[in-house]
């Protein structure tokens, strides 16, 4: 069996008196698309944030490629997120002041790539996701579907090993939602990147290879989809 790329073991995390995670464990294998399902407040987003190194669990451990992620410094985790991870959120993930092209080029520029080659790559990705026409537009001037496709391009432009998507279609209609999912999953598969997808829609979860269900902060089901 393939070694897990990313794993969480017995994670606990509380916000005040509210326990968001209560012993959650999960593994993500290279190239697989994993859907985290569950009702609102079940801890899906919190688990995703812990897996991505955004949040640090109160207890338990997160390992990425066999190395503990949760005990790394803030800077170390930031660097890892920049180099190995990509993100798509439900809304607000694009920097409102930057154009679509600049938003997509941003991770490359943060990693030290010069402006011109970074923007060239960004442009290629926008074309690939069929949003080349909005390259010069600001997020406020795009439709929701265009904005999310730009966000997908930004998540993938750096060649990540894992893409984290938190309700990536939550603000879209079903047609646009499916388009975005197709592009996200398709492009990730081409890149060989794993996708960790948080959703509460079975329709979106159907794009995954495997789904796990959370309830009250712990996994209640783990199933491989056909």
């Amino acid at each position: 069996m393939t070694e897990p790329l990313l794993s969480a073991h017995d994670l606990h995390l509380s916000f005040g008196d509210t326990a968001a995670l209560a012993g959650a464990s999960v593994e993500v294998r290279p190239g697989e698309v994993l859907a985290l399902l569950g009702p609102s407040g079940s801890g899906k987003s919190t688990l995703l944030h812990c897996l991505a190194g955004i949040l640090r669990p109160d207890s338990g451990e997160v390992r990425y490629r066999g190395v503990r992620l949760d005990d790394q410094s803030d800077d170390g985790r930031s660097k890892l997120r920049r180099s190995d991870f990509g993100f798509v959120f439900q809304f607000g993930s694009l920097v409102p002041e930057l154009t679509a092209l600049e938003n997509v080029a941003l991770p490359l520029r943060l990693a030290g790539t010069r402006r011109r080659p970074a923007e060239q790559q960004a442009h290629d990705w926008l074309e690939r996701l069929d949003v080349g026409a909005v390259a010069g537009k600001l997020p406020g001037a795009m439709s929701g579907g265009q904005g999310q496709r730009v966000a997908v391009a930004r998540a993938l432009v750096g060649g990540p090993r894992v893409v984290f998507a938190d309700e990536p279609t939550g603000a879209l209609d079903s047609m646009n939602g499916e388009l975005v999912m197709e592009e996200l999953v398709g492009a990730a598969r081409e890149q060989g990147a794993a996708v960790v997808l948080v959703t509460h829609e079975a329709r979106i979860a159907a794009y995954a290879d495997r789904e796990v269900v959370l309830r009250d902060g712990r996994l209640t089901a783990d199933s491989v989809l056909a």
Partner: protein
Amino acid sequence: MTGLPMALRLTLGGDRSARVRLLLMTGGAAVAVALLLGVAGAAPAGLERLDRVDGRYLTYDQQDTSRTQGVRARTSVGYWRGTELRVLDVEVVGPPLAPPPGLSVLPGPGEVLVSPALAESLAGEHGGELAPRLHGTVVGRIGPAGLVGPDELFAVAGAPPGVLTDPLAAGFGAPRPVQPEFSTGDAGNGVVTVTSGVSDELKAGTAVAAVALIVPLLVLVSTATRLSAATRDRRSAALRLVGATGRQVRGLGAVEGLVVGGIGAAAGAVLFLLLRAPLASIIPVPSGLFAGDVRPPAVAGLLILVGVPLLTTGTGVLAVRRAVTSPLGVRRQATATPASPLRLLPLGLGLLLLVAALANRDAVLSGRWYGTVLLLGGAALCLIGIAVAGPALAGVGGTLLARFGRGPASQLAGRRLALDPGAAARTVTGTALVVVCVAWLLAFLPLLATSSPNGRGDLVAVLQPATVVLGSTGDSDATPVLPAVDAVNGSGAVVPARELQLLRPGAPAPADVKELTDSSQFPLTAVVVDCAALSPVLRQPLTDCRPDTVYRLVGPNVFDDAEITDGSYDLVDGSTGQRTGQQVALPADIPTLTWPDALVQGIDGFRLAGSVLLPPSMVPAGAPDAVLVGTDGRDGTIEAVRAALGPIQTVFPPLTAEEALLVARSATDGYARAALLGLILVVLVGGLSLAVTTADGLRERRRAHAALTAMGTPLRVLRRSVLLQNALPLLLSTSLALVVAAAASWLYLRLGASPEVPAPPLPWAGYAAVGGSAVLASLLATAASLPFVRAAARPDALRAE
């Protein structure tokens, strides 16, 4: 009004962050109101307090010369360890009189009442120096009602009968005599005037300074009222989208503004009362200020307490205009329209008007209406232009930064500036306006100094600073006290000097030389002084000074009388213009001696000016007009010399060259200090605005920052971006402000210049200091808000709404 309860509920209710926001807004308005009241109260404090000493003046009835009862009084002004000391000697003839304010009863002969500051000095280590100057025994205190300020050294001494020879007056409490301009001399009724007046230049400077102080405070009020604009915009838009009318939403904005302004004004008034005493203690005026002196005039106070809530109400209405007209745009966070380059127009027009004023110099100087319009219109347009141009500058700067700046931080900051230049420019504009006003003041300060007679303060440049100068001895003959002065331990050269007029050989002999009309027969003016004795009290000893030698004096301001012939000259008393019946013989081929210019310029009551220098041995003995005494510089020595000179009755008390400089510069130095204090105040206020706006902006944009952090953007990139967003518009606006100030000052200074009086150079070092300190302080204020970046960029904001 059905909407009012809802508006109050929305303004005062809400969660913790809403309450914090309300607190910040009212706090900002309160600070601004307190400072406005302070500025309004401090400006007249220096003049109003003089009303309190009206009571020191005597009421004379010019018609009644046969008065046999009443009061005689004489004020003598002196210096003690660099501070002015006033003693009012009084003698009551007949029944007791009502005392002046601050006194419960007039002192009897030999009794002295003293101010608290004087009492403290008397009780101090050097009190022994003061006691002999008070003419009696201290028996009580003078209350605040009789003092200029808490630090005034003032005494009222009861004089024994027969000591005072002044005419009898009915009593105290005459209206203050016409306020003299710049004079510290006798006002004509036995009372030496308390202060110097205020020139038009200084009044203009005060007006500029007042604008410089008020503008940033209004910016602070406006900034405070617009805090969390985006959150409130979204709230207003939501109300609009569920059916609220534009009027209702504007009403909500107005109520919120009114609540903020009303609570802020009330809290500001309380804050002002609490801060009044510390404020009074730091305002740099001679003798200090009582806390009660810092009191805004009723109209100004009312204007502030009513005006600020009105301003915040108006700002509140304006703040919701976007939500009213385009609620969907607010919901979608559509971008604002970029600033138009047309915003540079007023500034360009202002500078053009100033150039036109220079081209029409005659019209401006002669006060023609269009000259005044060009000059004042140009200045006003420049100020308005800087404020209006701010967003355009920030926008252009942002675009260039995003295009050419290195790294993502530059790109983030540049784009943010280009998209919302107004927000960035709002707070830095206040700082820029202040920089302009202070830079203008800096350019005009040398003019103020030279336009004031007291500006002749260069004596210290030629005399040793600790040299005691006794000038205008008048009818008193200082000769008898000179041995006592010479005997003071630590005193050096004692140099008596006289001024004589020499009537030319063959000149007609009118009864009064002042009646001479032929300039070739005007008498020569001679300084009688032992130049060898004078040298030690000068910083640069006189060269080639030989004893018993007559010199022709040369120097930049010495009247160059080419006709000095040998022969016998009649001596004329310089003050009366009458011949003394004595002669002095001038030899042929008189050598020249370079005479220090500052001795010719002198100070009030003292100058040594003439065409020739005569050694005392050549002229018959006479009372000196002035005495210079060298000292070792110790305060004790200087006070002992003063005490030894005490019996000489003079209008201008003995003072050191260093004190003369302080007196000469007191007016302009006071304004310079006030300007500096004002600059510190406005930079603090500007910094406060900047820090609050930055912190608020971080809070408003926490979701975008959280998303950036989530994707691995280092905090240092976010911090650099925040810093750049403030630094770039600040540098641009401040640079523009300095360029405008330099250009306008250059033009103004040339308007009044002539070939004889060239315009003073622009104070580039001062400009650099003002601009640099404003930028540095503002950046420090921004840096103070950087710790919030970590909190504002926490990924928690990415969690569900």
